[in-house]
């Protein structure tokens, strides 16, 4: 199959949806002429023009608020927040407005809005350009939350997100924009709410999000050599969460490692772990292991950054620990 980058996959998803639905518009900082800071909107401005691909001022609340208004009026805006850290300057519009408008209006207003942003450290971008803040939005009823792990996933999920009637936050990964993967030429979508078993195994389950799926696969390879069969689940969407796939896997393996790049404390690994404990306590052979970012801001210097991030080695150790 042909291979394209994660950024290209995003661009294809956007272009396809824009072609078949003229209500789809893209807006954000530098998404137009520049084609996006991470080149995920490259070419859209040229194809669809400045009316449908809007470069905005540096005004994140303005961007999301504007997208909310567009969405209420029948458009399907896809707003980009260049770095995931900038959700902070748009938080009111995301949380108090977009997420709650359907509810507060008793179902009268819809906000079919997609917010594209990202997570991920590892690029020496320091504390204000490296956060993985997706957990906050899982704690915000009214939002769907997606974390695509590859070019294939990001294309299929983004297309579904655009067609969704509700606000969807899609957390891409900064370290993956340039990474290639197989993506079919023909159209497809991936429905929101389904996890994907990336590899079957019977000894231990790893649930991973975003770029941690790939890291976990590499660890699974390594463990295979030690005759440990790891089942790797790509969670794909956090809200709604595919409990069935998770539970079935844990019932089979009895052991669970959860890997996510967010800060560990009060992060999404906690929610997944508890959900599993609540649902299949008796199937668990031991405590669940969580591999996540240390409870620190992201430091700039490479050795420090490496120290705090979830790594293959940490995933490996977690599996070994749980099997003891």
């Amino acid at each position, binding site marked *: 199959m042909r291979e394209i980058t994660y950024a290209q996959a995003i661009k294809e998803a956007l272009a396809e949806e824009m072609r078949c639905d003229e209500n789809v*518009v893209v807006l954000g900082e530098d998404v137009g002429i520049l084609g996006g800071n991470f080149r995920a909107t490259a070419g859209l401005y040229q194809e669809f023009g400045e009316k449908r691909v809007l470069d905005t*001022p540096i005004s994140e609340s303005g961007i999301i*608020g504007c997208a909310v*208004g567009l969405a209420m009026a029948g458009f399907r805006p896809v707003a980009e927040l260049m770095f995931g850290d900038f959700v902070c300057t748009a938080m009111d519009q995301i949380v108090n407005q977009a997420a709650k*408008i*359907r509810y507060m209006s*008793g179902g009268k207003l*819809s906000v079919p809005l997609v917010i594209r942003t990202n997570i991920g450290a590892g690029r020496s971008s320091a504390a204000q350009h490296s956060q993985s803040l997706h957990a906050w939005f899982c704690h915000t009823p*009214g939002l769907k939350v997606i974390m695509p792990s590859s070019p294939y996933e990001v294309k299929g999920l983004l297309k579904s997100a655009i067609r969704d009637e509700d606000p969807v936050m899609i957390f891409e990964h900064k370290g993956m924009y340039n990474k290639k993967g197989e993506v079919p030429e023909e159209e497809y979508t991936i429905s929101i709410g389904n996890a994907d078993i990336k590899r079957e195994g019977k000894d231990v389950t790893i649930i991973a999000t975003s770029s941690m799926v790939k890291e976990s696969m590499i660890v699974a390879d390594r463990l295979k050599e030690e005759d440990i069969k790891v089942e790797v689940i790509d969670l794909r969407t956090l809200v709604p969460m595919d409990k069935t796939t998770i539970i079935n896997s844990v019932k089979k393996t009895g052991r669970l490692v959860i890997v996510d790049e967010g800060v560990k404390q009060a992060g999404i690994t906690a929610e997944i772990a508890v959900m599993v404990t609540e649902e299949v306590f008796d199937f668990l052979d031991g405590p669940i292991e969580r591999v996540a970012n240390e409870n620190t801001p992201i430091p700039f210097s490479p050795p420090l950054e490496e120290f705090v991030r979830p790594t293959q080695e940490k995933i490996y150790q977690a599996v070994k620990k749980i099997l003891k």
Partner: protein
Amino acid sequence: MKLSKEKLVEMLRKMLEIRCFEEAIYYVYAQGWMPGLAHLYIGQEAIAVGVCENLKKDDYITSTHRGHGHLIAKGGDLNKMMAEVMGKVTGYCKGKGGSMHIAAPELGIMGANGIVGGSIPIATGLGLSSKLEKDSRVTICFFGEGASNQGAFHEGLNMGSLWKLPIVYVCENNLYAISVSQQRSQNIEDVATRAKAYGIPGEIVDGNDVLAVYEVAQKAINHAREGKGSTLIECKTYRWGGHHVGDPGTAYRPPKEVKLWKDKCPIKGFKFSLIKRKILTQTEIDNIENEIKQRVDKAIEFARKSSYPAPEEALDDIFAK
């Protein structure tokens, strides 16, 4: 400006409707029929009416925590409003929103808002939708002078002005944001000055003179509809009561100031001029007032008789089905 008799009477009627509705809310609150609080519009009626009388049904408005007046002026149904304020299932939002969150998209009412300034960027999006669709709608964005100190105000107006969107930003300067007077919150006398920061016209108008508001709003709305972009209108006015029904509003405002502004009552003045101009007689006005009082009483009755939503409905409307 020459307005038909019908128009003038309609304006008075709407203002009275707002006044009467808001007084009823005080009553309803005092009776304990209403959960939570509400922010009343008494004293500012000329603004909502003066602006909205220029609008078509499908024009958009965004509103604030102090939204009842805007909603009524834009055609809101008193029964559904009252029921919403009481948390009943027959309300505009099935009881989920309450006073601060009433929405009626079928009337172009795109939601009141409990976050100060929160609706300003949303209005930008509504305006942008009209520009993209070429639907010649206008969006009216209501907010207070306090909101003009919010970052969202700046971002919303910057984008609205940049893209020449058909939006009229209506700042109701009632001199206070809760307890903080305008001069204790900004270093300028007129919020309209801020229009300069966005390269759009800034207008100042007596917010207690419904005809003056109507005229200024008309100009701005035409400007917007003709594709010439946004305007910021500052309406000088006053909030008669406290910040909300539970606040007497006396701790931070001199009684003299309150009295002065009550003397400038937007309704009293307008009634007087209509009588003087022989558009209406006192008896006719009394009849209108009685009729409105009856409708508001009926709204209270309707709301009281309506039932609360079933508890499990709390789980609906989070996402589309």
